């Protein structure tokens, strides 16, 4: 069972220099409360792993506006002007990863695999410096697991065991990152009594969740 903690307590767990996975896709399925709180707390030198950087004020946007991030690992950053400026000036180091490879590298870390073999990126800039593995006459890139000190997760519903249910396209990277972070912090839209989420609807079992953030309701 978990006692829900405040956003400030959650932010206090995350030190400067931490590697943080942040779920979401173009600002949907992002734990927005903790993003804003991390930005307000002025965290420094974070390595951020996130599918995309959304826009200047959505998704992970506030973390860039507050200069919290030193290194970014993502698949798309084209719609955030702050990220583009920080990348151009050299303030922000960026590793671009094809989206399907990004999610599988995270999953690999979460499920104990030593990496994945993917055809995506073979023969492109993405393959530079990576091992090519031939399987049955086909070429694949060896892509290594991607782990993080913290995974910050958004869920529709959470109970006090930490079981999580998601909604529609707000699911995206959430259940995968919940497997891969060393410490998993969830910011749900609602916390419900244990038993309220039918077992078949639990997409992340509570055993994976370390901390649940209190809702304002």
């Amino acid at each position, binding site marked *: 069972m978990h006692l829900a903690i405040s956003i400030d307590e959650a932010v206090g767990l995350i030190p400067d220099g931490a590697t943080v996975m942040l779920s979401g*896709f173009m600002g949907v399925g992002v734990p927005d409360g903790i993003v804003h709180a991390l930005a307000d707390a002025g965290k420094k030198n974070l390595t951020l792993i996130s599918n995309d950087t959304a826009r200047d004020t959505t998704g992970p946007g506030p973390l860039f506006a507050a200069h919290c991030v030193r290194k970014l690992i993502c*698949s798309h950053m084209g719609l955030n002007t702050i990220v583009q400026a920080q990348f151009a000036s050299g303030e922000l180091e960026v590793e671009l990863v094809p*989206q*399907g490879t990004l999610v*599988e590298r995270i999953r690999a870390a979460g499920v104990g695999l030593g990496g994945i073999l993917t055809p995506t990126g073979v023969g492109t800039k993405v393959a530079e410096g990576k091992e090519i593995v031939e399987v049955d006459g086909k070429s694949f890139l060896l892509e290594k697991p991607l782990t993080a000190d913290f995974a910050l997760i958004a869920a529709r519903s959470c109970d006090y065991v930490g079981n999580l249910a998601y909604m529609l396209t707000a*699911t995206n990277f959430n259940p995968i990152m919940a497997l891969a972070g060393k410490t998993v912090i969830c910011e749900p839209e609602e916390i419900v009594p244990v038993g309220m989420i039918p077992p078949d609807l639990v997409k992340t079992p509570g055993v994976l969740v370390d901390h649940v953030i209190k809702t304002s309701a």
Partner: protein
Amino acid sequence: MDPKILIARRVAQEIEPRSLVNLGIGIPTLVSDYLDEGMGVFFQAENGAVGMGHRPPEGMTDRHLTDAGGRFVSFVPGASTIDSAFSFGLIRGGHLDLTVLGALQVDEKGHLANWMIPGHYTPGMGGAMDLVTGAKKVIIAMQHSAKGKAKIVRECTLPLTSQRRVDLIVTELAVMKPEDDGLHLIERAPNVPLEVILEMTEAKLIHGSDVPEMQLDC
């Protein structure tokens, strides 16, 4: 006809009934407007939707239901949601029948570049590399040139998206198909002379003496 609508209508003719299709951002998104809903096509979005429908009316949107561009969408009956790993499993695993994407450049070999302009703008590849590598069929839907600069070139100078050859290129001027022996011009847009297409194309186009016009009224 608006060039973007012409492209969308021509691409829509390529879509098979009951297929699974992913539409990229921009012109490709328009393609679904020109399909008969009775065809039973399911649209997939990278962010985890199978069975996306049109944008709902104002006041009926749900902030948990968006397409891969972050825009509000609806679901058609029979839709489902999946996580990002499953979504790219569909894409890479050969379950996606067709993807329609935009491009910065396409070349004579059918290679595509659409994710960065070194030194100028680096948006990133998002799902494009997986889509081009994994989809059964790839169609490029784009304007023939950008501000007078050719986009259909002899060889891509921008970083490639994949080494896979795309299947078809549709622009407001022409339909082209890359084959082993080069890039074939197979259709002209209505009332566009062959000379105009050749002048606007840097790549060498293989064509017969009489290139048929697109048939858009079906």
